[in-house]
């Protein structure tokens, strides 16, 4: 069966590359990327614990890396990924419980996740830096 529409190019199936990024979609993939990154950081937590259990020399090596500039940047990234996944996860749990599905609520909670993740990351590092300064 031929008709006029079959000669025209048909619309492609939903394809992520042609969609304009939106807060909803960006936070969705960011939550997943943060989760994967946090698993990598969890490997770091185990290395840190095993080194601490192994003795002062092993711990000193790991501690020196954490205190290096690369280590501190990674730790800052870990803090942000943690708060992003924590806030995004709480948003998901609210959805799972049946709350916050209106378009307004979805954008309000989305921007709250962005603002809270940045604020909590900065606050955590500010407290840590102040406490390190006080103990010196």
């Amino acid at each position: 069966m031929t008709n006029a529409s079959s000669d025209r190019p048909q619309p492609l199936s939903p394809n992520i590359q042609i969609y304009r990024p939106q807060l909803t979609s960006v936070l969705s993939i960011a939550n997943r990327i943060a989760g994967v990154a946090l698993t990598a950081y969890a490997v770091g937590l185990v290395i840190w614990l095993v080194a601490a259990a192994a003795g002062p020399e092993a711990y000193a090596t790991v501690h020196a890396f954490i205190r290096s500039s690369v280590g501190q940047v990674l730790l800052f990234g870990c803090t942000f990924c943690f708060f992003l996944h924590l806030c995004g996860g709480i948003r998901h749990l609210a959805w799972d419980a049946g709350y916050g599905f209106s378009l307004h609520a979805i954008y309000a909670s989305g921007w709250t996740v962005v603002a809270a993740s940045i604020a909590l990351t900065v606050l955590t590092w500010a407290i840590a830096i102040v406490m390190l300064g006080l103990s010196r």
Partner: protein
Amino acid sequence: MSMARTRSPLGRALGLGSAKDGVEHWWLERVSAVALVPLTVWFTASIVVHADDNYPGLMAWLATPLTSILMTLLLIALFYHSALGLQVVIEDYVHSRIKLPLLVGMHLGCFALAVAGILATLKIAVGT
């Protein structure tokens, strides 16, 4: 065609998997997420407090019963939640022959990491 139409709704749904195991995977991901909220906040706050500890100070904190218990619970919830999350990521994006070995390796890796972390925590807890 007629075969599909004559089968009962239950007969069509049975054995398809997702209606059976999917709910449990989804539910356990949420349960572990709820557990991780207080555990990870405790861990982050503790690391901030103990950021300047020397090795004996850190070991003294890690060796307290409360720290050992919470750290063990954290490691269990963390790697359980990681395994469930990474499983979905692999299932969504990996469609080649390495999918199955990747899933098996990931699950075994998460289990091994949790065991290593817990044993290190216990070793510190009981002293050397």
